[in-house]
């Protein structure tokens, strides 16, 4: 009798879905509209959402993976999602939820989607939120944002001649990430479409790296890993900077002195016309050890519903965040952002690309960063350094470390 009662109690116990999200407690509050919508559909399910600080994310996730216990769903950086998927920690959405993949094919930001889709269609995670590179400039010190490389060069020289320090890149400065958009703008690529060959030693890549290095050698951009570019924007040292879309919300909070005196713009275009920006952010996936895979997939379907996505974006604004749904680009138009900011964002979104979808890239990115830094910081030869990086990347593609 007692056993029967215990069994009945066990059956009656509510199903529980555990979601781990990288970031601070604000990210969990952004997800609340999705949690509420999901609970309305599945009243008996308890959804527990926990934030995992970026600094601890890798160790916490790896501990959970090693013990094969932990969250049903996770969010993580784009490359981390790809790498975890490649290691078998996340289920293949293409196989388990083709309807969700079709939805993402229709609405996700193409560059963000390409980043999480392996050659052959395997997809271990879906774009969740995104950030992309934009130009920010002081409207009182620069009449308009440069739209081409030539205009950019002239603007920075003019600013420097006027006593300012000129231009600063913040996100990815002097690393592969900072160089990446210039590589694509020049018509280059990191790998071929099937991830069988590294292409970083192409003539386009060499040209791009030489141009990127000229920002530091000739235009004297700061070389710190993360320069105080927004501080420089505020005090006028750097009236023109390149950083992520998080500044759209944080500048008016953290840099109040320049409220109303700054604007955002798409990146300047290369001579070929491309102005590709890097798109990063987080992805969402279902862990392969989750006992509630179907439930977790259903939660993901809720997250990517148009009205839910829109409410998540709205929930972020009072928290001082700009939450850009990488999986529902169609909802960006509805975000209550200032029109000028939205315009810059939507224009730039037409040409964005995320990190490559090739397994092992997270490890190999260091070899490209080193090539970039040797050219920028140690006057290395672009062709030589990129050839060495390509050699290492190719070696890894055939199984080497």
């Amino acid at each position, binding site marked *: 009798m007692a056993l029967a009662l215990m069994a009945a109690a066990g059956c009656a116990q509510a199903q529980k879905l555990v979601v781990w999200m990288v970031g601070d407690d604000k990210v969990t509050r952004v997800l609340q509209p999705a949690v509420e919508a999901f609970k309305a559909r599945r009243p008996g399910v308890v959804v527990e959402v926990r934030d995992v600080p970026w600094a601890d994310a890798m160790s916490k996730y*790896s501990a959970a993976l090693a013990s094969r216990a932990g969250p049903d769903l996770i969010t993580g950086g784009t490359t981390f999602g790809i790498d975890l998927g490649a290691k078998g920690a996340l289920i293949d959405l293409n196989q388990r939820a083709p309807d969700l993949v079709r939805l993402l094919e229709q609405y996700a930001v193409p560059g963000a989607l390409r980043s999480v889709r392996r050659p052959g269609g395997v997809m271990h995670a879906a774009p969740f939120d995104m950030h992309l590179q934009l130009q920010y400039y002081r409207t009182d010190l620069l009449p308009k944002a440069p739209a081409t490389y030539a205009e950019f060069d002239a603007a920075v020289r003019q600013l420097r001649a006027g006593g300012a320090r000129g231009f600063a890149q913040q996100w990815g400065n002097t690393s592969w990430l900072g160089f990446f958009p210039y590589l694509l703008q020049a018509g280059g690529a990191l790998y071929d479409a099937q991830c069988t060959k590294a292409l970083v030693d192409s003539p386009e890549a060499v040209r791009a790296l030489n141009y990127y290095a000229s920002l530091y050698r000739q235009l004297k951009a700061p070389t*710190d890993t993360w320069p105080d570019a927004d501080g420089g924007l505020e005090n006028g040292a750097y009236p023109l900077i390149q950083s992520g879309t998080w500044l759209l919300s944080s500048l008016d909070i953290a840099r109040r002195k320049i409220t109303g005196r700054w604007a955002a713009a798409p990146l300047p275009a290369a001579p070929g016309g491309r102005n590709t920006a890097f798109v990063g952010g987080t992805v969402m996936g279902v862990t392969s050890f989750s006992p509630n895979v179907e439930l977790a997939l259903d939660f993901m379907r809720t997250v990517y519903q148009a009205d839910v996505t829109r409410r998540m974006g709205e929930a972020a604004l009072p928290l001082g965040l700009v939450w850009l749904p990488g999986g529902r680009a169609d909802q960006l138009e509805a975000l209550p952002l200032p029109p000028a900011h939205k315009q810059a964002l939507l224009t730039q979104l037409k040409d964005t690309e995320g990190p490559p979808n090739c397994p092992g890239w997270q490890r190999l990115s260091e070899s490209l*960063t*080193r090539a970039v830094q040797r050219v920028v910081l140690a006057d290395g030869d672009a062709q030589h350094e990129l050839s060495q990086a390509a050699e290492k990347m190719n070696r890894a593609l055939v199984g080497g470390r």
Partner: protein
Amino acid sequence: MTRRTFARTLRRHGRDMLLVAPFVALFTVFCLWPVLRSAWLSFTEYHATAAPRWVGWQNYADLFADDRFWRALANTSLYMVAVSVLAVVLGLVLALAFGSQSRLHQFARITFFLPSVAGGVGAISAWKWLANSEPYGLFNSVRGWFGLEPVRFLGDPSWSMVILVAIGVWSVLGYNMIIFVAGMRSIPADLYEAATLDGATRWQRLWHITLPMLRPTLLYVGVTGMIASFQVFYEPYLLFGSVDAIGGPLDSALMLVTYLFDYGFHQLDLGYASAAAWVLTTILFALTWLNLKLGRASEAH
């Protein structure tokens, strides 16, 4: 051991064994087992998502073939030598200068000891502000007063080690000073009195009494300082690292622990990271052994 002698031992030491049992259990579960497990993992390919796969010495071969590992080892060794030597020498100088019980010396000791208790992420953030590469960074502001151009302290590879060593020495200097002051207080005063009567100068007293009598303290400070500085992690990680370039400009701030952290927790290559950890452990073991050997030899002398 026969059953009878075992029973006798148990009778005699049973209570002692019971008292140390909790520690032994905790030590075994949380120290010994993880260490042994990591030794085994270092011979496997392990990404936390599937069972480890035995690869023999491959991780070690890959490690020794990686020029970034050698760069990390060279950086760490340079950092260790610089911080250990400077922190010992300057700590000793401070102990000699502020070793008395006067209020001024007590205040000076408190001041120099503060960094040891105020370290951590907050202190590194303050250093980041001090060493800001822009003209409004404090160091560069001071340079500006003398008409000097700003220096890119956090963006120029040639400055990375200078900044890291400065922080490393700053954070342990006060601690070393306190240990030296305690060591000096334990030196019998009559030795100094006798030497003074014999006409020994201040310098001779220092060279022939203070330093030889401080040898065990010097050894302790030296060994613990070397071990701690060889494990440096959060200073370079917070000052120079980013997700896409963990070693700072041209890997000038890449240290062994940052290197293994990157492989272990960013890339989930736990077998390879375990191999790096064991190389680090072996180096630390060898350094400690060498220090103790030298200490004992000089003691005997």
